[in-house]
């Protein structure tokens, strides 16, 4: 279609179809300089299309010319897998699919004995092979959770651009032992909500210090950190309190009594402090992998850092509910001695029946793995008054 460049694909195809009494499927529609081209497979369609010439008028009431010639198969079609090859590929993929894990192992797919036996060359680095594979995955394994593309000599991930449509549920992607040179390739699969990403054995690894885990921050985008220095140390502020003395002494009294029991041998005394339906959670920012903090194991076990824990079930599990659960989990933590002199207390909200305040301070571990170690903490309390207490 000369001058076809000015027409929108859908409009021109629909217009031609409406003037053509033989249904046709345009293949490889593309624009080349000013012209629009497409291929049709059968001769009858081609003949009918010849007659459409000059029958269509565009918005400016100019005639649209349509010329039809015999031609060879379009380039893209030539590279597509033949139906027999697709069938064999499907069988091969079936063998490599683990239903229980919903995992597909395509490691070294090119050298799979079945494919080699049938002389089918599946080079996943080539778009047509990757596209064929994704097509089979879309049809047969739509619930795929884990995809292993290890050792397939992948230089780029262009073939995975539409993986988010073909295999949207993939959570584990193994791209190790390929030829990926740049971490920017991963931008092509950014739509996936990955929980595990394997990249070792790729040239890009030498440019990055580590990439062992990649979590797609959907609720919170990963923070963009600029600059390496810690900000200026903010001088600690002097104590200042402008509220009522009764509230202040209430809070201080509470803290005194609370930590008296907390620092004692048996934390069960805290049962009288907590409401039946109270909630408690703890978080630590230290890295459990760091050998220096191995002595703080007990704190890691229950650490509920929402930034890292995305699984809603786990989040609920780590939230201690009811006073018994709370006191049980507190009793497991090492014996402590809190330094009340170090406390900085901030009163955030105060209403007739509720007090919301936080305590910053330090405490010492009295026994356990590393007695004598001093740790800093921030603790937030919400107190409500029931009847008179």
């Amino acid at each position, binding site marked *: 279609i000369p001058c076809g460049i000015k027409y929108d694909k859908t409009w021109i195809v629909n217009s031609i179809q409406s003037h053509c009494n033989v249904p046709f499927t345009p293949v490889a529609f593309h624009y080349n300089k000013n012209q629009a081209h497409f291929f049709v497979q059968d001769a009858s369609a081609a003949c009918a299309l010849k007659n459409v010439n000059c029958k269509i008028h565009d918005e400016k009431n100019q005639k649209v010319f349509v010329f039809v010639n015999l031609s060879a198969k379009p380039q893209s079609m030539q590279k597509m897998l033949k139906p027999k090859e697709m069938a064999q590929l499907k069988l091969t993929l079936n063998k490599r699919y683990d239903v229980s894990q919903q995992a597909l192992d395509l490691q070294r797919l090119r050298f799979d004995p079945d494919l080699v036996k049938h002389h089918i060359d599946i080079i996943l680095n080539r778009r047509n092979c990757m596209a064929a594979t994704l097509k089979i995955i879309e049809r047969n394994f739509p619930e795929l959770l884990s995809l292993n593309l290890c050792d397939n000599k992948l230089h780029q991930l262009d073939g995975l651009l539409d993986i988010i449509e073909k295999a949207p549920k993939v959570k584990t992607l193994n791209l190790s032992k390929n030829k990926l*040179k*740049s*971490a*920017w390739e991963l*931008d092509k699969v*950014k739509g996936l909500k990955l929980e595990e990403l394997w990249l070792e054995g790729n040239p*890009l690894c030498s*440019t*990055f*210090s580590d990439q062992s885990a990649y979590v797609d921050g959907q609720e919170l*985008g990963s923070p*963009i*950190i*600029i*600059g*390496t*220095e810690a900000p*200026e140390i903010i001088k600690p502020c002097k104590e200042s309190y402008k509220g009522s003395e009764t509230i202040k002494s209430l809070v201080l009294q509470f803290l005194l009594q609370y930590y008296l029991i907390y620092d004692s041998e048996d934390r069960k005394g805290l049962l009288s402090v907590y409401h039946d339906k109270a909630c408690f959670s703890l978080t630590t920012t230290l890295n459990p992998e760091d050998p220096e903090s191995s002595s703080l194991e007990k704190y890691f076990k229950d650490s509920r850092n929402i930034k890292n824990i995305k699984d809603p079930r786990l989040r609920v599990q780590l939230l201690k509910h009811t006073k018994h659960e709370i006191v049980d989990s507190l009793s497991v933590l090492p014996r402590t001695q809190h330094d009340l002199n170090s406390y900085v207390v901030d009163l955030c909200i105060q209403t007739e029946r509720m007090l919301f305040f936080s305590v910053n301070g330090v405490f010492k571990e009295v026994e356990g793995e590393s007695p004598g170690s001093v740790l800093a903490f921030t603790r937030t309390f919400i107190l409500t008054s029931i009847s008179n207490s």
Partner: protein
Amino acid sequence: MGDKPIWEQIGSSFIQHYYQLFDNVRTQLGAIYIDASCLTWEGQQFQGKAAIVEKLSSLPFQKIQHSITAQDHQPTPDSCIISMVVGQLKADEDPIVGFHQMFLLKNINYAWVCTNDMFRLALYNFG
């Protein structure tokens, strides 16, 4: 934020952060450079965080304001980001003058730092 490519997001965040610091408290720019960083300021070369901060802090104006007209960002083959900024600035009571600046950003330990920085004012009559 999700529709822009990641290097654009990082580049824009950096640009915003850089000029905010520069216009208000440029002595704190040290945090974005490392010891291997290079700065070329109007043809003069500086290397290393300390030297760069010294040069920037000692620039002879009290007040400075940048206005960005355009910024471009590209990913590099070694996973860095290259950014170019075109804009205008006003120092103290001097007339408004155009400038160009180019940054190369690198990710070190999860934070983005500037390893290369080149600045030129858009002045064409050196006579």
